[in-house]
């Protein structure tokens, strides 16, 4: 209860400050919109289905891109973790590549895939693949050896060993990496959508800019924050809680 009260007070104060600044008219309204202007934009955007369509398109892209990243990243990470040669060679490369913002792949993606959805997917994958790979590599190393030994001892090998033992055993250690991968995927997607106009939230955001409609820009920003937060706070939280219940402790502490 106390926490909820603190939340309400904080956001009410923030909103009040915003309203005050807008009321003072220090900046013209098209540069500094009012809260109700943003609310109107949000309402209108949902009303004429623009936002619904944008959300659907963006979610579809990020889910496909992130899904591919997770599968590829796990295989890659496991390979790097279990092979000394790969670890020595690829390990360093992966870490150094992570300092490259994923949007830097955009020019290459355009050349390779053309101006279409695949180019966006490529940027999303490049954004999140490394996080997942590094997390999986790290998780595989942190995971107690005994699980792999017990699994092999009980007759699990190859793909079965991976699916039934190594993957679930490393999950608590890679959840944070998966979460980070999701955040990167989401950011990369919005960036790519802003550069290439083809539906999606990023495009709607840029449209607001082109029309000098700052209310719409902020409305879409709020949407992007909300979706990112919901996935993080709902989907990943549920996953973490589920793992904690099973394992009996906060595993990746």
């Amino acid at each position, binding site marked *: 209860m106390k926490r909820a009260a603190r939340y309400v007070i904080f956001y009410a104060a923030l909103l009040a400050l915003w309203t005050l600044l807008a009321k003072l008219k220090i900046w013209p309204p098209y540069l500094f919109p009012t809260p109700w202007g943003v609310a109107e934009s949000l309402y209108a955007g949902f009303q004429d289905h623009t936002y619904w369509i944008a959300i659907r398109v963006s979610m579809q892209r990020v889910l496909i891109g992130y899904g591919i990243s997770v599968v590829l990243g796990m295989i890659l990470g496991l390979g790097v973790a279990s092979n000394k040669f790969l670890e020595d060679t690829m390990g360093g490369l992966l870490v150094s590549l992570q300092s490259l913002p994923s949007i830097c792949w955009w020019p290459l993606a355009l050349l390779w895939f053309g101006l279409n959805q695949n180019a966006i997917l490529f940027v999303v994958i490049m954004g999140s693949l490394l996080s997942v790979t590094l997390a999986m590599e790290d998780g595989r190393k942190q995971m107690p050896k005994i*699980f792999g*030994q017990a699994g092999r*001892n*009980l007759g*699990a090998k190859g793909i079965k060993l991976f699916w*039934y033992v190594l993957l*679930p055993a490393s999950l608590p250690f890679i959840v944070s990496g998966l979460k980070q991968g999701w955040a990167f995927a989401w950011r990369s997607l919005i960036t790519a959508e802003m550069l290439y106009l083809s539906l999606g939230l990023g495009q709607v955001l840029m449209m607001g800019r082109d029309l000098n409609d700052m209310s719409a820009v902020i409305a879409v920003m709020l949407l992007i924050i909300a979706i990112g937060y919901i996935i993080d706070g709902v989907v990943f939280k549920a996953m973490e809680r589920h*793992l904690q219940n099973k394992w*009996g402790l906060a595993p990746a502490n």
Partner: protein
Amino acid sequence: MSTKARAVSHQYPIPIEPRAPARAAKLGPVCVGHSDASQAAPIAKVGLNEICLSYRTQTGERLLALDHISLQVRAGEFVCIVGPSGCGKSTLLHLIAGLHSQTSGQVLVDGHPVQGPGTDRILIFQEHGLFPWLTVAENVEFGMKMKGVPRAERIEKMRHYLRLVHLAKFEKSYIHQLSGGMKQRVAIARALATEPDVLLMDEPFAALDAQTRDLLHDELERIWNETGRTIIFVTHNVREAVRLGDRVVLLTFRPGRVKSEFPISLARPRSLEDPEVALTAREVLEELRDEINRSLEAEYAAGVKPHIAPGEEA
């Protein structure tokens, strides 16, 4: 193989009194069961022939961990391997389990060289190695699932083995909800559920409190009687070895060699408190003392050399 072992246990139900002859009778048919073994000397269930294992340390020198270890274990036998820490006794179990390979020598099971892990030999770890993401039931079913045993049969066997370790009520629990002793019992049920011929136990009770350990000793002895499995049990506790084993094998400290073997013919069921057990344990400990001192010296290499005086427990 597994069907054979089960047949034996059906044919010879729990021998209550007298223990020793019942065991002897049980061993006979198991060996004769192998057609190739009926002529000459019976082939050992597990045979270690001149096993050597060496590895390179981080400083680059070669370290000999196991030195020409030879040991023959009969089917249905309960063999305990004792030695100071660092004698390579756990490593030896890993070799039999096929989780590592030896540098030279042969590990034979039923006369065939071991090539990698197999569900005819199941290892029970000191830290139990249960899967925390699975329920007790799913843990016990795991080995059968890997083998492709149909679901209905899996569940039936899972229930059977959980009853055997008195954990039938905990099917749906997760591992972290169990006590240390219960975890070890689940580990035993999980191992038995794959119906291995050989149970390899790596100090399974070392981390448990004394009461729980006593209880598990009784249960293990009973399960061994009921299932007729071959058990190779590694421990650093001499009394535990004497209390459980048909034979106690003593390993030396670094490199591990077989120092001596003690056949234990005390009547079963035994107890840790039996004077005969204590007496025999003292005999074994007498032999072991030098090795323990050597291992302690190595640990306190900085010049301190604590010795165990005669009569003290390790």
